[in-house]
């Protein structure tokens, strides 16, 4: 029966209850390593912290999506510099893949070092990768299910290495022989799993500490929770293009983030930036406004963030497409962060 007007039935179902004023939505800053050189990324992290953001996520790419973007710096080097340049900002990777490019030993080594440098401010985002970043190694591009298996076993290796002690592992995908990480944080960093469908959401619920999603899909959040992820963080991402006029915002979005119009099924399958450029050109710029929130003020961005929150994402990372990062700093400090209850 509906309980529209309330009920005297209280929280006796084991689901617990929340305080009357729930904690606010958390806004994050997206550091796009495809678009900005490493020095700019460090500068942007400092800008974000100064504007009042408490968390940031940085992409981990070997190559940009399109040649126009022009960058793809080594994420662990940049994170080391960000650790030194910031004091309170939490930073994580979004996301690091364990396919060809990264062996879990190397990821554990790098992540443990960065976690020590960031002193509890680091999280590790992991995923099943894109062919764009793996094909240069010249190996077969495995199907999604295989890559998910690789990631699952890789997370097991990561957790063993983070836990300390001597690790030996001989698995289907990864091997470790007599390794103990000498530099590692006292508390292992949380591992958040990128989720694009119900299978990865279920796996994230079973073995992850949270999920990273790019669409406001309540079903993925629900599968994550139903598979063991209840109470764990759900992180979303919104692409925005803020400019003086809508036309400028659309032009900026198309200029710097044109691959957003490529159908999701192709994103992980194409192997060269030229492929993304060709696919984007074939689709055309008409739908760029559906994929990137083009705005001159906070209104449309708030609506996009609200959709993620309504679907269950407690933290939403805002990615200002293009070089003009100051526009997001200004809008966030003046409107977005205060709106969501985070002091500017």
């Amino acid at each position, binding site marked *: 029966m*509906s*309980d529209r007007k309330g009920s005297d039935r209280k929280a006796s*179902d084991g689901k*617990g*209850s929340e305080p009357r004023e729930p904690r606010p939505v958390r806004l994050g800053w997206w550091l796009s390593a495809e678009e900005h050189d490493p020095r700019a990324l460090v500068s942007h992290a400092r800008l974000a912290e100064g504007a009042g953001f408490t968390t940031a996520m940085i992409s981990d790419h070997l190559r940009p999506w399109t040649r126009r973007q022009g960058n793809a710096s080594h994420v662990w080097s940049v994170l080391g510099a960000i650790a030194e340049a910031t004091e309170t900002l939490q930073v994580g990777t979004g996301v690091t893949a364990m396919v060809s490019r990264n062996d879990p030993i190397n990821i554990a080594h790098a992540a443990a070092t960065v976690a020590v440098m960031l002193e509890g401010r680091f999280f590790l985002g992991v995923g099943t990768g894109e062919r764009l970043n793996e094909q240069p190694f010249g190996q077969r591009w495995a199907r999604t299910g295989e890559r998910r298996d690789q990631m699952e076993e890789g997370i097991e290796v990561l957790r063993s290495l983070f836990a300390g002690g001597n690790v030996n592992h001989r698995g289907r995908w990864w091997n470790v022989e007599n390794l103990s990480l000498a530099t590692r944080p006292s508390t292992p960093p949380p591992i958040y799993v990128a989720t694009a469908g119900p299978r990865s959401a279920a796996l994230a619920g079973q073995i992850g500490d949270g999920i990273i999603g790019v669409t406001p899909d*309540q079903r993925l959040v629900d599968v994550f*929770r139903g598979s063991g992820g209840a109470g764990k963080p759900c992180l979303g991402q919104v692409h925005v293009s803020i400019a003086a006029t809508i036309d400028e915002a659309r032009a900026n979005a198309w200029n710097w983030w044109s691959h957003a119009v490529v159908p999701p099924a192709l994103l992980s399958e194409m192997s060269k930036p030229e492929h993304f450029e060709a696919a984007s050109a074939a689709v055309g710029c008409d739908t760029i406004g559906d994929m990137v929130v083009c705005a001159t003020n906070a209104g449309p961005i708030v609506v996009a963030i609200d959709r993620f929150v*309504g679907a269950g994402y407690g933290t939403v990372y805002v990615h200002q497409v293009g070089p003009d990062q100051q526009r997001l700093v200004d809008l966030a400090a003046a409107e977005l962060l205060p709106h969501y209850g985070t002091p500017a």
Partner: protein
Amino acid sequence: MHDLVGGRSAWTVLGLPTEGEVGDRRRIRDIVRPAASVGITATIADAREAAQASGHTHAPIAVLGEDNVLIGSLDPVGLRLPRKTAVEHAMVRAPGTIRPDVRLDEALQQLRDDGLAYTFVTTARGEIVGLLFSDDHV
């Protein structure tokens, strides 16, 4: 012996045994929990109030249109939005639903197979009945 087709259908719909032992005859309607709900014009403040009044602050909130028809779902995380936010802007439209006459063991197994934590229960016309959680025990 007469084969009263209508009677057989009614028998089946009610979940009465068609072969073997009686088994678990319970239906979703036997254990469905009330769902906190608000109208489509509500704000987050209204949704918080409805959730707290129902005692289900960790459950999704049903967003209802006319005649109590379910048109959207607001995740409990959505209660963190600013109080004046329109629920209509934050809700997820057309959430998944299940009918109250479905056998309980089958429904729970389906939820578990799909990895879902819950589903809304509505009549065939979309009127809200309540919520079924995958950890509701048979």
